[in-house]
């Protein structure tokens, strides 16, 4: 279980997360919606230990990310896919994927590479595994980013606006892969602006507004008139996003 308890985070005078509570059970797909600056990315960065909490507690399978000794274990259990891919530019697609399994999990190189190849093939990049990130399109880079996270066999996949930097065609490429992962039962925390897609794959949708978790409802309920839409801010957000 991934547990976020009463988490507060501020950058200087700006409060970004103001007492957030969230629980993600194994097998669940939870989408986090909210306008830009609402704290979605910061929440992900707190879960994977890139930001220090000002208050509250985050545990990944009972490993506290605020404790240095437990953070390593917590990080092994979660895999992050970044908005801007964050690939290592001096490594090929395959090397990007095998670095952490070889160095952190101490897997034998041949084994890690075989798995990396299989992963790349599963996302349609079998032909491009020796290409450097600069030689790949945005959609291809993000698919490598997803494979890199999956290679660590994480229990929780953290996706931070993974399609925001992509055009609609490339977005479709990436979403197709995520849909497949969701169907296979991968646990995901999915920060996104793709509302329709979130609706299709999520078990639950939460809505963040100015660092506060306004709504946390099962997907159907979230889009129901007496559920999430009863919140004026959510209704406003959804109608705006749909117009675009």
């Amino acid at each position, binding site marked *: 279980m991934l547990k976020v308890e009463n988490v507060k985070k501020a950058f200087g005078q700006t409060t970004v997360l103001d007492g957030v509570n969230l629980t993600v059970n194994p097998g669940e797909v939870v989408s986090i919606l909210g306008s830009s600056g609402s704290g979605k990315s910061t929440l992900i960065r707190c879960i994977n230990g890139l930001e220090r909490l000002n208050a509250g507690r985050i545990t990944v399978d009972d490993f506290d990310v605020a404790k240095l000794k437990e953070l390593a274990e917590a990080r092994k259990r979660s895999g992050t896919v970044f908005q801007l891919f*964050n690939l*290592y530019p001096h490594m090929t697609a395959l090397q990007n994927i095998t670095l952490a399994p070889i160095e*952190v999990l101490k897997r034998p190189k041949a084994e890690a590479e075989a798995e990396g190849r299989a992963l790349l093939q599963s996302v349609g990049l079998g032909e491009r595994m020796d290409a450097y990130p600069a030689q790949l399109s945005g959609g291809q880079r993000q698919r490598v980013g997803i494979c890199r996270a999956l290679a660590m066999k994480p229990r929780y996949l953290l996706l931070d606006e993974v399609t925001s930097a992509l055009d609609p065609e490339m977005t479709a490429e990436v979403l197709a892969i995520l849909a497949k992962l969701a169907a296979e039962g991968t646990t995901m925390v999915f920060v996104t602006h793709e509302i329709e897609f979130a609706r299709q794959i999520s078990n639950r949708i939460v809505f963040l507004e100015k660092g506060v978790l306004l709504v946390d409802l099962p997907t159907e309920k979230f889009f129901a008139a007496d559920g999430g839409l009863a919140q004026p801010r959510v209704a406003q957000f959804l109608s705006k996003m749909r117009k675009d």
Partner: protein
Amino acid sequence: MRYTEFTPFDLWLLAQGLGVTVGLFLVTSLIGALVGVLWGVVRFYRVPVLMQVITFVAEVLKNSPVLVQLFLVFFGFPAFFKVNMTPLNAAIITLSLNTAAFVYVIAVSSIESIGRDQVEAARVFGLTRWQVLRHVIAPQALAFSIGPLTALLVNQLQVTSLISVIGVMDLSKIGANLNLRTLKPFIVWTAVGILYYLAAKLVATLGAKLEKRLRAHSAFRGL
């Protein structure tokens, strides 16, 4: 009567001088690079106190003339610390430290040029600071630093000529001796200049080749 004609032996003398210059250059560059990179790593790990000391020492070395440093080491150290100092030792110490100071600056800026995003990604996947340095930062920082490093080394090669003033028999000292004997400064210094030029050109060419290889991943491969 003095003998002012050139002899074949003068060529041998010049070659010896060139050997001393190149040898000293290689040794001090190697020591300087190792020390400079080590200082850069100390800064990467933000080791308290040591980091401030290094920054201060590097500042002093960068902002004072090599000649003054050389005199301080050659004349000052024996007087103050009561140690023996041969011209060669003084030259090696001074040039190595001076190179180290500039390598340190290049190392720090190369390390900082690597995007935070990649470092964060590597950390999230559980790599230790050392593993991040070794696998993500160092290969890219090295490729990035070859350009400025080559420029530095070409300059440091010329700087070695300063050590002739404390009596090391390098290329410049041989040139000065030949000049005194033959009284043909134009020919002597042209020959010496060409030898420095060729050595520097070799350093620059090797640097460019290495840079091209290390930057293969970002090279534009044509349409």
